[in-house]
């Protein structure tokens, strides 16, 4: 009975498990008075395949690379991959002004500080 069950078992769509390997992109993080600047290596990721979401002090940076298979493979060291990394961002970041550019496979992400968080020179008025 049980053997029979094994042979006749049909595949459920939900059982197909395939996930891209996830890897962390290498990043550099810089800061000056106006902004925090992040450089991330994401080779082979187009700008439409990058998503950046900031929610509740947590920023998730994700990008997917899909290489086109051409011909027969002689050797393969890089493949389809998802770059993903989570960062804690301070509340002083002005989320609306966050912008990014992509150049030569490197993402440059600018996180401007809100006005309230910038250092301010206080002038002392003689009384």
């Amino acid at each position: 009975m049980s053997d029979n069950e094994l042979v006749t078992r049909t595949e459920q769509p939900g059982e197909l498990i395939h996930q891209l390997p996830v890897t962390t992109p290498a990043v550099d993080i810089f800061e000056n008075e106006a902004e925090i600047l992040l450089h991330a290596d994401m080779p082979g990721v187009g700008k439409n395949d990058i998503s950046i979401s900031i929610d509740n002090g947590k920023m998730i940076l994700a990008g997917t690379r899909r290489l086109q298979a051409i011909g027969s493979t002689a050797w393969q060291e890089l493949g389809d991959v998802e770059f993903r990394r989570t960062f804690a961002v301070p509340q002083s970041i002005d989320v609306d002004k966050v912008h990014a550019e992509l150049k030569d496979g490197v993402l440059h992400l600018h996180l401007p500080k809100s006005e309230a968080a910038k250092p301010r020179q206080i002038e002392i008025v003689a009384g």
Partner: protein
Amino acid sequence: MITRVQDMQQLLGAMDLFRNQMNSVFNAFDRNHGIGQGWTSTPSYPRTNLDDTGDNLVLVAEVPGVCKEDLQVKIQGNYLQIGGTRKPDNPEGYKVHRTERESASFSRSFTLPYEVDAAKVEATLKDGLLKMTLPKSESAKPRQIVIR
């Protein structure tokens, strides 16, 4: 028997999931494990793929942050060398919190499975991937032999 194969695939899929989970554990501990996939060893830089499309060999190399002026490619027969410099892109006047992206010069050479025609090689650089189409030289192409 087909069911068995599918069971194997499911098992492998589950192992993929497990690997991703373990990688995210490493991430959670803020351990940068390099550009490799998790706990595998870091291969030589730059990482490349080589494909054979019949008439051409196609080489793809991963060179993020390197502009085309800083890349050199040398080809002689079936010997190919990729060299270049990844210049530091630290902006002026910024305090540095973290540097994981190394800037260094690199060089890697390959012995291709066929001789290629160096004059007809096309190379493009897009999104940090260098793609080279290397036409096989005439002597390396398959040839029809007429039997008399």
